[in-house]
C-alpha cells in the first residue's frame, strides 16, 4: 500500500464516511477479526491474573 502516486501536497486523510471499495471492506473485516481475537486473549489473561491473586494465598499458606 505505501508509495501511492499522485499524493496531494497537503495530505488530508479523510473522506466521506461511507466506504465503498471492496478492498477497504476486506481490510475492515480482517481488522474486526483481529480485534475479536485480541480481546479474547486479553480477557483470558485478565481473568487468569485475578485468579492467581487467590491461588497465591493458597500456595503461600
Amino acid at each position, binding site marked *: *500500500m*505505501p*508509495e*501511492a502516486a*499522485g*499524493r*496531494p501536497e*497537503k*495530505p*488530508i*486523510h*479523510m*473522506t*466521506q*464516511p461511507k*466506504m465503498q*471499495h471492496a478492498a*477497504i471492506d476486506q*481490510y475492515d473485516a480482517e*481488522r474486526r477479526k*483481529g*480485534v475479536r481475537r*485480541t*480481546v479474547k486473549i*486479553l*480477557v483470558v*489473561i*485478565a*481473568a487468569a*491474573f*485475578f*485468579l*492467581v*491473586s*487467590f491461588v*497465591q*494465598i493458597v500456595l*503461600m499458606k
Partner: protein
Amino acid sequence: MSHAATHDHHDDHHGAPKSFFQRWFMSTNHKDIGTLYLVFALVMFFIGGSFAMLIRAELFTPGMQLMQPYFFNQLTTMHALVMIFGAIMPAFVGLGNWMIPLMVGAPDMALPRMNNLSFWILPFAFTLMLSTLFMAGGGPAGGWTMYPPLSLQSDSLAYVVFAVHLMGISSIMGAINIIATILNMRAPGMELLKMPVFVWSWLITAFLLIAVMPVLAGAVTMLLTDKYFGTNFFNPGGGGDPVLYQHIFWFFGHPEVYIMILPAFGIISEIIPTFARKPIFGYKAMVFAIASIAFLSFIVWAHHMFAVGLPMGAEIFFMYATMLIAVPTGVKVFNWVSTMWGGSMTFETPMLFAIAFVILFTIGGFSGLMLALVPADFQYHDTYFVVAHFHYVLVTGALFAIIAATYYWLPKWSGRMYSEFWAKMHFWNSVIWVNVLFFPQHFLGLAGMPRRIPDYNVAFANFNMISSIGGFLFGASQLIFLGVLIHGVWFSKKKATDRVWEGAKGLEWTVPSPAPHHTFDVPPVIHDDELAHGHVND
C-alpha cells in the same frame, strides 16, 4: 488509495451528533471520549489538589490547628486515591484515546462502545468513593495502600472496595481497547517499529494494566470478605497473614507506579525530538528500555516491604532486582539528552515542561536508587524521604508530562494556539514552587520525620513551613493552567496550523487543526519521511 484527500470543507463537527447529551453521554468517538477523560482528570486533579492544600495547611506549623487527626488521615488517603486513579491514570487514558488512533492512522478505537462504558464508569466510581467523606464514619483513613488490619477498621471499606472494583474494570476495558487498537487498527505501512514511542509506551502500559488491575481487585475483594464474610485471609486471629496482603498489593502496586510513568516516557520522547528538530536518539533502545522496565516491574514489589521483616535472601533479591531498573531508566535519560545534543532547539512551553521532566524525574530516580539499598531504606522507609521520592517521579514526572502533552497537542484539539506568555508563566511558577514544595521533604525524611502524621516536633518546623508555602503557590499556579486552557480552547484568536510545531512529525500533524470529528476513515497512505521514526533501523 487516491480517494483519500479530496474533501476540504470539513467543519469542526463533521459528523458530530447535534445534541449535547448525545454528543457527550452517548459518544463512541475516540476524540470526544478522550476529551471527557481529560476533563475528568482535570476536575479530579483540582479535587485531589484541594485535599493536598488542606494537608499542607495543617502541617504549616507544629500543633493541631485545623482538623482532627482522623480527618487528616482521610485526607492523605483520599488525596492519593484521587490523584492516582482519578487524575494521572485517566489523563493518560484520555491522551491515549485522543492520540493513538491519530498516530497510527486508525479511524477510531477498536471498540468504541466499550470505550464509552470505560469512561462513564469513572464518574460513578469517584462519586461513590468521595461520598464516604460525608458519611457518619468518614472516608477511608488507612492510606491508599489499605493495609489490613487497619483498613478493616474502617466503616467505609465496602464503598471504597466497590469503587476500586469499578476503576479496575474501567482500566482493564480501556487497556484491552488500546491493545486491540494498536495491534489491529494501524494503517497499512505503519509497522510496529515505525510507531511513535508514545504508542509503544501505551501498548506496554496496557499489558501492565491487564496483568495487575485484576490482582488489585483480588486483594481488595479479600479485604471485603475478611471484614464482612468471616474469611481470614489477612486476619492473624484466624490464621491469616497481614503481610500476604502487602505482597499481593505491591505485586499490583509497583507495576502501577510504572503504569503512571511509562506513557510519560512516551510523551517526552515525542516532544523532545520535535523541539530539537532531530530524530529521537536510539529509537529501538527506547522501546526496549520501556519493555524491560515493564518486565522488571513485576519482580521488584517487595522493595516496598523491606521493613516488614522479610527473610534475608528475599531482601537481597529484591534489592538487586530494583537496582537493575536503574539501568534501562538511565538509558532513557541519556537518550533524551543525546536527542537534544546537536539539535536545533526552541523552547516553547511543551519543551520547557519536557526538559523539567528530564531533570526532575531523574532526581526522583536518584532517590529511588537510594531507597533500593536495603540498610539505607531501613532509615528512609515511611518517612518524608519517600514522600519526596514519589512526588518527584509523580508530580514532576507523570504530571509534568501530562501538562507538556496538553500544551503540545492542545492546538490540534482546539484549533487555537494557547497563550505562550501565560503558559510560560505557568511553567516557571510550577517548576519553582514544586521544588520549594518537595525538595525540603528530603531533609525532613532524613532528619527523621515519619510520613502520614498530622503533627510533628518543632525541629521539623522550618522545612515544613517552607514546603507548605511552596505547596500553596504550586497549587495557585495551577489556576494559571486552568486559565490558559479555557482561553486556548474557546477564546484564543490565534488559529493553529495543521502542523502546529515546525519540527513536528507524525500522522497526527497531517490532519487539520482542530482535528475533525472523523479522521482516517479511509486508511492514510504512509510516507516514512513524514513519521518521526520512519527510517529507523537502530
